């Protein structure tokens, strides 16, 4: 370095938060004696305007080359103080934070001055680092303006529409033959009881017709590479074997198809054909031939559908199409599934036909469902006179199932009970619950209405088991309020099954390098302050894949994720953190060990036989620098020399 460093140390009292445990003025007096420290002071709140001005004045008057602010965690005010030094002409990376609050004053008692000694070591170590920091400039680069949305449930639909409305091109990839997700299966929505399809299908149509949105249904993301602003994504468009432009939805193919399998849209309450359309308002509006169910295409075992098709829309030779696209941002909206009732041993392992889950009951209530909206039980089509609703089935049960609350079941069970009572006024509805959680706008009022006006019997307690006896489902439970055991002979039991992340979450998390929490939901960048961002740059979350959510919350998060994506795409360029690895070619032996250690493929051994780093791909972890046998690689501003001196300073005399 040309001239001797001149470091200023600014010690924050943080009111009593630091000053109460650490002798801040003593620190200021001591640190001024340390090598290369030419200025030190302490102040009540460094982050306040007067505090910031003290730093600015000192940088200018004392001609400082580096600044250490000994204060709270860098996650709080590192940006603040870096902006301050930048204002007065220093490079922002010439400012470092010594964390003496979260990692010192807050975790120690007074302890005979030892916290002060520790704070001094932390500050000295930071001085050793900052005096060797080099100015860095952020790397600016171009980015794609397109946004990828994975998942076409209501969260993904909302996100895609918002991003498209802002003028960005969007591709929405949906693995099923239609968009709409679980919301399309619902009958009415709580607490307003508006018909789910009636409010959803206009949005589906709007998405399909939007000039900025390309819908790729029956498609899956296969491969993702690249980084924020420039993700290269391979998408597989699976063959539907039906040309949607030619298909006129006459349904002749479906009529002649000889194969019947479980109908996913009706949650298995009915059968569907191998060639089918999930529901009449499906988007895209076309048939799909399910090859898993079909008798066989290669060799062709049956061609009844194609023979019946007057429009000549069926082509058995269709095959997967692989599309490569570049995206600036990605919104992940892969949604949820229900925890399988087959896992509920206490409730019959899903073996009783008349023990159904919440989504199945939605289909029974739906005007487009298998019973046309009349509540008839699956086994014999009889109208059930006694219906037991079991909340928290698989939720809030850490010993046997999931420990978390699935959040939406209290509300939809109340809705189910209400709609059942409207359907079957003379029937009896019993709801077993642990607690009622109705935290949402107008939610509690809805629950009260159901409990008081709709004559639904709420029983506080868990159902311990149920068994089929003489054609009835005997339910054993406890009413904690009366303290009595309850036995009900039910005709139908509805289990409010726990919400679990959809199967796609695991693969998507691998493709995009996303973290999953202990229950398999996506982990957001910060549980409170960054709830729609992932830790992977340019990837955002919408909907229940990140945690159980109802419709308004999913839509809100869809819009939130869209806003984040738009914010990113609206910038003319994307800046990349300049803390990357650099290579001393004189030291590099070209062994290539670093290449294999880099998780981002940012390193290669070039034609001249030495390692070369792609600064755009490098995320600055420094793993390669530590693994280099000749020390040819170093991480900018966290070099071997810096760390060595920091260790020395941390240990003191």
């Amino acid at each position, binding site marked *: 370095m040309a001239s001797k460093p001149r470091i200023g140390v600014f010690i924050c009292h943080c009111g009593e938060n630091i000053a109460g445990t650490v002798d801040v003025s003593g620190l200021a007096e001591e640190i001024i004696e340390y090598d290369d420290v030419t200025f030190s002071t302490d102040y009540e709140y460094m982050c306040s305007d007067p505090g910031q001005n003290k730093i600015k004045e000192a940088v200018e008057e004392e001609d400082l080359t580096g600044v250490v602010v000994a204060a709270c965690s860098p996650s709080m005010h590192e940006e603040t103080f870096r902006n301050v030094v930048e204002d007065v002409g220093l490079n922002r990376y010439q400012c470092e934070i010594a964390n003496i609050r*979260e990692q010192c004053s807050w*975790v120690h008692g007074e302890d005979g001055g030892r916290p002060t000694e*520790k704070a001094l*070591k932390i500050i000295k170590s930071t001085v050793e680092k900052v005096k060797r920091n080099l100015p860095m400039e952020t790397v600016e680069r171009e980015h794609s303006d397109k946004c990828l949305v994975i998942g076409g449930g209501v969260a993904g639909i909302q996100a895609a529409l918002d991003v498209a409305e802002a003028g960005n091109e969007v591709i929405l990839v949906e693995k099923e033959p239609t968009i709409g997700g679980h919301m399309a299966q619902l009958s009415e929505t709580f607490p307003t009881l508006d018909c789910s399809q009636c409010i959803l299908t206009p949005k589906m149509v709007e998405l399909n017709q939007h000039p900025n949105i390309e819908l790729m249904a029956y498609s899956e993301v296969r491969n993702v590479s690249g980084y924020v602003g420039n993700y290269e994504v391979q998408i597989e468009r699976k063959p539907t074997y039906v040309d949607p432009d030619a298909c006129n939805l006459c349904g002749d193919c479906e009529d002649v198809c000889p194969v019947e399998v479980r109908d996913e849209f009706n949650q298995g309450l009915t059968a569907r054909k191998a060639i089918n359309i999930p529901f009449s308002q499906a988007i895209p509006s076309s048939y799909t031939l399910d090859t898993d169910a079909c008798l066989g295409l290669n060799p062709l075992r049956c061609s009844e559908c194609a023979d019946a098709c007057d429009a000549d829309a069926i082509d058995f030779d269709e095959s997967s199409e692989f599309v490569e696209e570049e995206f600036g941002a990605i919104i992940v909206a892969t949604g949820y599934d229900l925890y399988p009732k087959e896992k509920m041993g206490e409730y019959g392992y899903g073996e009783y036909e008349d023990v159904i889950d919440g989504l199945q009951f939605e289909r029974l209530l739906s005007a487009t469902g298998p019973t046309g909206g009349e509540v008839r039980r699956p086994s014999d089509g009889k109208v059930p006179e006694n219906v037991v609703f079991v909340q928290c089935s698989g939720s809030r049960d850490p010993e046997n199932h999931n420990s978390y609350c699935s959040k939406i079941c209290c509300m939809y069970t109340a809705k189910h009970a209400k709609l059942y009572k409207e359907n079957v006024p003379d029937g009896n509805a019993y709801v077993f619950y642990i607690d009622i959680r109705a935290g949402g706008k107008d939610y509690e009022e809805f629950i009260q209405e159901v409990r008081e006006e709709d004559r639904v019997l709420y029983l506080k307690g868990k159902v311990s088991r149920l068994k089929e006896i003489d054609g009835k489902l005997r339910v054993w439970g406890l009413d904690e309020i009366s303290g009595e055991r309850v036995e009900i002979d039910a005709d139908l039991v509805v289990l409010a099954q726990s919400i679990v992340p959809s199967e796609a979450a695991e693969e998507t998390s691998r493709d995009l*390098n996303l973290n999953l929490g202990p229950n398999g939901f996506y982990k957001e960048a910060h549980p409170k302050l960054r709830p729609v961002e992932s830790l992977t740059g340019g990837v955002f979350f919408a909907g229940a894949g990140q945690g159980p959510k109802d419709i308004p919350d999913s839509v809100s998060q869809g819009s939130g994720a869209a806003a984040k994506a738009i914010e990113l795409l609206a910038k003319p360029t994307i800046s990349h953190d300049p803390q990357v690895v650099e290579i001393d070619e004189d030291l590099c032996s070209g062994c290539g060990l670093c290449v294999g250690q880099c998780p981002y493929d940012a390193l290669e051994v070039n034609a001249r036989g030495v390692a070369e780093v792609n600064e755009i791909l490098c995320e600055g*972890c420094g793993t390669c620098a530590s693994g280099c046998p000749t020390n040819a690689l170093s991480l900018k501003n966290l070099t071997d020399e810096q760390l*060595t001196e920091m260790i020395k300073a941390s240990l003191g005399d």
Partner: protein
Amino acid sequence: MDFEPKLVGFLCKWCSSAGADLAGVSRKKYPPNLIPITVNCSGRLDVSYVVKAFNDGADGVLISGCHPGDCHYTSGNYKAWRRVALLKHVLEEFGLNPDRVRLEWISATEGEKFARTVEDFTAEIKQLGPGPFSNAKERK
């Protein structure tokens, strides 16, 4: 005067340093013996730093990163894991108790675990006594 071990802790920025911050925010108390050094990733840990720390008088060294599978940089913690395992063998060959080096996985939500780890490690090193180049005897 009791022996007070000098400890250095290399904490990864994304998980363990955030976990240490959470210990602070939740006011979990632990002894002040360990001086934290935040690095971008536990994978940034060159094992020679551990040796340097002992040369400079450390009595114990803690390395803490994200849980396996949770590394912000995908896999840096796995590299740290292997490197530390190897280092422990080498240290043992040189007659240094490998328990003086501890590798822990501490996430951003594990403030309590961070505090207890430092407390426990401090107590353990107290039992083991001064490190190979400690000046603890002179300090008495």
